[in-house]
């Protein structure tokens, strides 16, 4: 049931039109940050106000929404956003990646490959990849206009000079269709290779910073690197302790104060699906499935 006091999907129609126009321009200019008149939402900045506005502008009554926070469906941020749209849009929700038509995400791309009938909406804190190198918006805008991205390579080079390798491990900058350098939001660089050539539409919303950008399906997205220091999608060198997955992104969980720890898939739906299929990990209960 949706809350009758609110318009469908919370936002008023004029606001949705404004966001929709920004989304279309975003798709037409992949990786370019379109300014939009971000609204105050009934949640604090930093909790996905940008993503929520993009989702609200995209949702239809027939959609099935999934919300993940660092891969998990059951954390505060994910649960509250899912409930928000259950109440204001009355849409179906699911925790299953394959069942969802719109997926709002904070800082992960689901492990399961997305399809053409899906939209992935990212929550973005700082949309400008050059912001920590150049604080002035007037300057970064010029740098994008002139395709002047030398500073970003200097930053990556300094990483190598200092650490021997590119130490940037999340929000790793990418180049979209050989033109705009884009912040993929703070996803781990493990997820970067999934950005390019994806079948689903990828939309990015930054509420506080009032920017929307997009990557159309099947678009070239290249992580910045050097010939002698090629990009590497890294993850913890372990298998999931619950489902045994060797190729999924892992969270490290401290289990006691004696140095005990475990690694588990950050994508909870992926891990649960594997366990249901009978896969076991190092810490699975004995005789669980196997």
């Amino acid at each position, binding site marked *: 049931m949706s809350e009758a006091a609110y*318009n*469908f*999907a919370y936002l008023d*129609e*004029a606001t*949705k*039109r*404004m966001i*929709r*126009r*920004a*989304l*279309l*321009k*975003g*798709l*037409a*200019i*992949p990786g*370019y940050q*379109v*300014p939009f008149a971000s609204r105050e939402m009934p949640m604090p900045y930093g909790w996905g106000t940008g993503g929520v506005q993009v989702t609200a*502008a*995209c*949702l*239809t*009554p*027939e959609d099935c929404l999934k919300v993940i926070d660092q891969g998990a469906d059951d954390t505060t941020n994910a649960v509250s956003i899912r409930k928000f749209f259950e109440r204001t849009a009355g849409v179906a929700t699911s925790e299953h990646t394959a069942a969802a038509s719109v997926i709002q995400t904070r800082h992960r791309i689901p492990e399961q490959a997305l399809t*053409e009938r899906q*939209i992935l909406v990212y929550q973005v804190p700082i949309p400008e990849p050059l912001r920590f190198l150049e604080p002035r918006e007037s300057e970064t*805008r*010029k740098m*994008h*206009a*002139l395709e002047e991205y030398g500073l970003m390579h200097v930053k990556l080079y300094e990483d190598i000079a200092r650490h021997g390798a590119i130490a940037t491990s999340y929000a790793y900058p990418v180049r979209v*269709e050989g*033109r*705009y350098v884009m912040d993929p939001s703070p996803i781990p660089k493990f997820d970067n290779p999934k950005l390019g050539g994806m*079948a689903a*539409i990828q939309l990015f919303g930054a509420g506080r910073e009032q920017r929307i950008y*997009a*990557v*159309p*399906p*099947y*678009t*070239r997205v290249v992580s910045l690197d050097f010939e002698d220091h090629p990009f590497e999608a890294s993850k913890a060198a372990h298998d999931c302790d619950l489902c045994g997955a060797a190729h999924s992104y892992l969270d490290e969980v401290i289990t006691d104060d004696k140095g005990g720890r475990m690694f588990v898939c950050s994508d909870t739906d992926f891990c649960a699906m594997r366990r249901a299929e009978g896969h076991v990990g190092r810490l699975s209960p004995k005789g669980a499935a196997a």
Partner: protein
Amino acid sequence: MTQADILSGGFAEAPQQAARAFRACLEAMARPGRIQRIEGAHPPAPLSPAAGAVLLTLVDSTTPLCLAPSHDLPAVRQWIAFHCGAPLAEPAQAVFALGTWEALQPLSAFPIGTPQYPDRSTTLIVEMNALSPPNAVLTGPGIEDRQPARLPEIDSLIANRELFPLGHDFFFTAGFEIAALPRTTEPEAL
């Protein structure tokens, strides 16, 4: 055109129908050349239902609209005034433009954006007789391999591609069908 005709033909359930119509626009812009069905609007002729739905979904009092001579008719003006409230504008000020391909010429009159704000370019809604059979093949972002499409003309759309990241973005409408061609798409004659 009677008063009743002007007042009717909009979305009956605006939030839900606009949401569905926008998804058709979004899919169209994200997957250039692929035809989507778009419903809900019943505008006066010669405006197609598809173009009417695009107007209802995207155009309002904040977006100056340029009506090309083909569509600059009292019935269309009045319908847009009531349902969208968009100020009618000259090409140089237009955020959206509506008309047949011939009537919209010359395209150079419409803004293509600026290097710092390439999004400040006109989106053109081009009314077509039909969106098939295809006369061009498209490649570019949003297209996995090659996408056949019906275009009103090919050379000027190739020239538009060369302006990237500036340039115009197009919706092509006919009946209840819509397809799009953003500035990133490379057309090639079949």
